[in-house]
């Protein structure tokens, strides 16, 4: 089997959640990967919670900062906990993830866009409904 893979010119795929050097890394190395991930995640989480409650930064920038920190932390989790990498053995996993992200962006962005637009254009109805309550 291995000769077939070498003939094809690339390493075999890995399952999502598996590290690519199966059996190659020692236990300590593997624990270290999770520990680095945990440390980075704690750092990003603590920053998020600190920024949400602080007056030290320009207030309108806070939502953007929180979203950026959240995306960064998702990246940390994907790389250090789920072992999704950009390596050649991970192409299928990354492509599936990319498709998932595309759908998520379409669903969320599209919903918010359409609903904000409706809210803006249908203000009289909105007022009327509030009066009826």
């Amino acid at each position: 089997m291995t000769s077939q893979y070498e003939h094809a010119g690339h390493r075999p795929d890995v399952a999502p959640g598996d590290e690519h050097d199966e059996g190659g890394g020692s236990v300590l190395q593997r624990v270290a990967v999770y520990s680095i991930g945990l440390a980075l995640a704690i750092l990003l989480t603590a920053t998020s919670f600190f920024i949400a409650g602080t007056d030290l930064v320009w207030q309108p920038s806070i939502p953007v900062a929180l979203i950026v920190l959240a995306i960064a932390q998702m990246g940390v989790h994907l790389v250090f906990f789920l072992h999704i990498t950009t390596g050649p053995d991970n192409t299928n996993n990354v492509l599936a993830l990319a498709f998932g992200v595309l759908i998520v962006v379409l669903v969320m962005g599209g919903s918010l866009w359409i609903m904000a637009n409706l809210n803006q254009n249908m203000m009289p109805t909105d007022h009327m409904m509030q009066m009826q309550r």
Partner: protein
Amino acid sequence: MTGAATAYEDGDPHHLRGMQGSGVGHPGPAPKRIVTGYGFWIFILSDIIMFSALFATYAVLLGQTAGGPSGRELFELRNVAIETALLLISSFTCGLATIAADMRNQLWFHVTMALTCALGLGFLAIEANEFASLVARGAGPTRSAFLSAFFTLVGCHGLHVFAGILWLLTMMAQVVAKGFRADIQRRILCFALFWHALDIIWIAVFTMVYLLGSAS
């Protein structure tokens, strides 16, 4: 042509290995661990897409409080910080359990899985407590569209964590009963994927619902 000729002798009647040059790119069917893991990865991504619909609903209904309390008046960030810490550390111990399973170490597997279970239960206890106190204060899911969306989104994540804990206990029992067989190892891989994915969804929950809800 020689590749196609030998393929039949290798038990490859469909000549899949002869298709290397035609863009298929993988010699023969993948090992079962990869097929299972990849299939479960697709399931997790579709689960995340379902959550994205709930997130979109929540974001759209954020302002529709019907004169009731808004997120800023209701959320206690201290509790959310504890919940986040519990879930994050449980993700770490779940990773350690994966390593222990690969090393076929029963003791460490059960210790780390029990830790993961305890942290998950702590998360659920705090969340249930929060929900109960919201309902007791008259801010239940029937109060406003905003609160309906809030309970649906956060409750759905909580249900996932609950299902994850049931799965976790099943895996511990299966490892006791059947040992680290290949099929059990695949289930542990899928469980770890599921548990880590729950933590990723929780990042979105605590950022979008709690932090943005109390900041803006």
